[in-house]
């Protein structure tokens, strides 16, 4: 039985692993099933649609078509590894798995295989230190930036003083959710607020006891690090205990339509961080409608266009495509390798003028990568949910994080990683 199965598997897999030549191959380790699918579907759609747009409108990047290899991970690390191994042959250029767990798996593997890993706004924060993490890029923002921006925003709300305030952190009890704890602990020392940690276990449908605890302790603010079904449940529970929504701030992964719509009017006034703008007002959407949607080439059901996470997937695809362009310019050829693309990522600069040219003016912050800085400026916006209009409104401009606190933490964590894995610092 075992042998028969293995033989059958051999035959099938040998047939499937024929690489396409000369195209730009971008695997998409997406998840459209499981408890995190509400976040995974729009992101994957946005990611695919942007490359479809480039293929349809411009004939690819630099004359080379982009081929997307999608693989379903279900947010599961074992399947993520399987997907990585299945797609890495045949010239895969870059990975963007949208999962902190899978990112942690892939960081050492991809450094060994020489393929860049792009993790905008998630993954391992200290990968921002390019001196240690040669193959990982997480600009424009990361988790610790997010934690710092949230606190900075609360500082402006409280005239620069958070002394004696109580802040609760409701977080997904995993690597992802634990990321901000270290930063928030440091910031609580600096600004004198007390931090309560309230973990929620995977997948997060059961949160009654956590919100009873919040009702009992009456924190002034609640910060949330949630993903997937956990967000919607948390917002519903917060509404149930009448927690003032304007004092409830989610990270950017807790700020999509899927999270607030189930709570109806109860979610009115809920805030979240945002690392880019959202909505259909940007000129690029005209092209997406014309070349992708109306041409019947939309990824998935095509019903996610213009949502927060669709925009984020599109933004990730945009940064990757710009890095490919840069790499093509550096290498002087259109069909680049993964190593060329790494150089492209490292020398990438996206200016406001370039964003406007791409049809996304004032969408994201401009940034410039260097050999040492793979993390970007890290600023973020605050958006607020208007339940009547069913719309996110930006309530602040870009807020910069507190680099005085973050830089030493990043240096400390990346140095620990370098020591564990015998990595010599680059970028002398």
């Amino acid at each position: 039985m075992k042998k028969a199965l293995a033989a059958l598997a051999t035959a099938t897999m040998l047939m499937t692993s024929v690489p396409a030549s000369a195209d730009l191959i971008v695997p998409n380790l997406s998840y459209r099933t499981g408890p995190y699918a509400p976040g995974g579907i729009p992101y994957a759609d946005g990611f695919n649609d942007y490359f479809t747009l480039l293929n349809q409108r411009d004939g690819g990047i630099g004359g080379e078509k982009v081929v997307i290899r999608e693989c379903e991970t279900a947010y599961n690390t074992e399947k993520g590894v399987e997907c990585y191994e299945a797609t890495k042959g045949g010239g895969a250029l870059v990975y963007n798995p949208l999962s902190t767990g899978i990112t942690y798996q892939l960081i050492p593997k991809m450094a060994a295989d020489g393929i860049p890993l792009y993790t905008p706004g998630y993954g391992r924060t200290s990968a921002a230190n390019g001196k240690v993490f040669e193959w990982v890029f997480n600009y424009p923002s990361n988790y610790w930036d997010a934690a710092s921006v949230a606190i900075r925003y609360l500082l402006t709300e409280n005239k620069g003083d958070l002394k004696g305030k109580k802040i609760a952190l409701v977080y997904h009890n995993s690597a992802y959710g634990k990321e901000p704890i270290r930063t928030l602990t440091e910031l609580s020392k600096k600004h004198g607020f007390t931090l309560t940690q309230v973990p929620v276990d995977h997948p997060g449908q059961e949160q009654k006891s956590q919100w009873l605890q919040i009702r009992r302790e009456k924190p002034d603010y609640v910060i949330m690090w949630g993903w997937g079904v956990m967000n919607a449940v948390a917002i519903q529970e917060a509404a149930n205990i009448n927690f003032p929504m304007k004092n409830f701030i989610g990270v950017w992964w807790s700020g999509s339509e899927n999270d607030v719509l189930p709570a109806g009017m109860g979610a009115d006034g809920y805030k979240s961080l945002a690392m880019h703008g959202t909505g259909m007002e940007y000129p690029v959407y005209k092209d997406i409608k014309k070349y992708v949607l109306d041409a019947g080439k939309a990824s998935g059901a095509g019903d996610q266009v213009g949502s927060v996470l669709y925009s984020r997937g599109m933004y990730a695809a945009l940064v990757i495509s710009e890095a490919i362009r840069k790499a093509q310019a550096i290498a002087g050829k259109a069909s680049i390798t993964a190593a060329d693309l790494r150089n492209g990522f490292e020398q990438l600069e996206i200016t406001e003028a370039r964003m406007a040219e791409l049809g996304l003016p004032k969408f994201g912050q401009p940034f410039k990568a260097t050999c040492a800085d793979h993390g970007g400026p890290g600023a973020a916006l605050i958006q607020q949910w208007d339940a009547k209009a069913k719309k996110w409104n930006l309530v602040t401009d870009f807020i910069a994080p507190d680099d005085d606190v973050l830089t030493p933490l990043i240096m400390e964590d990346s140095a620990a990683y370098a020591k564990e894995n015998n990595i010599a610092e680059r970028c002398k």
Partner: protein
Amino acid sequence: MLYREAGDFKTSYVADSQTFPIKFDRIRYYLVLAIAFGVVPFLINDYWANAVFVPFLIYAIAAIGLNILTGYCGQVSLGTGGFMAVGAYACYKLMTAMPDVPFVIHVVLAGFVTAGVGVLFGLPSLRIKGFYLAVATLAAQFFLVWLFNKVPWFYNYSASGQITAPERTMFGIAVTGAGTPAWAKYLFCLIILFALAWLARNLTRGSVGRRWMAIRDMDIAAEIIGVNPLTAKLSAFAVSSFYIGIAGALFFSVYLGAVEVGEAFGIQKSFLVLFMIIIGGLGSIFGSFAGAAFLVLLPVLLKNILVGQFGWATDLAAHIELMIVGGLIIVFLIVEPHGLNQLWRVAKEKLRLWPFPH
């Protein structure tokens, strides 16, 4: 026919009680071994190692472990995921605390640590059995996962709560870490699996195994004929946890390289291994292999057919895959409630009599 008994005479007790009494089976077994050790390592690449063989080998170890407890000794356990986590965290702590000790010793020590924890959680089995014991071991599952999430000492105070395997070498070749060649990963797991399966087979047909089976079949009768339920049950828990701990250690260090306890060792892992032994066949070593192969390889195979060959959308394929695997499990258990092992045994019986069945 291939399976014939005529001319296959046994002239000693040793020959009569061997694991593969039929010559054709014996040859087949040595052939499989020769291919596994002598051919596969030369052909294997990263995809085959990481997506197919290494998970299969590791799950086979875990399935043998659970089969010893549930299949041979009749003690239902839903704590497999938790015990695998003990193995993984023990291995991690040992690897980081004593980097100079050979890695294989850490793996074995992790097995012993898990055996200790397993005995601790096996204590209730002296008073309760069946569903009640399943709930007690379920408590172990949740407690252990909670513990490894809660106490930062276990993950060396890392910011994310993940444990990451540092690079360790055997004879100058990396067996953990990103630089591990595919064949080294495969061979390391294969050798451990081979040793453990051999040990399990011999344990289960010796006096220890007979005691376990006596307890399984009827514990009161076993006690009357002189089997001490305390030592029998606790030894089953210890041996089973030893195997599962080793599987957990390999799962973390060789296969994935980094794990997060809630995600990698959650309740679904306990169910997965339990399904493996139910489908493979309770109380059989071959069944553990067959069950692990069924549940590890089939989804990968289906994914490759549905997405790779037919070009279906990945989400549709993922859902269909769940339905097919689930449906096949039901069909298998209706056709043969005693699992793949029994199916295989019946097929062999029929082949031995072919072409004159009675």
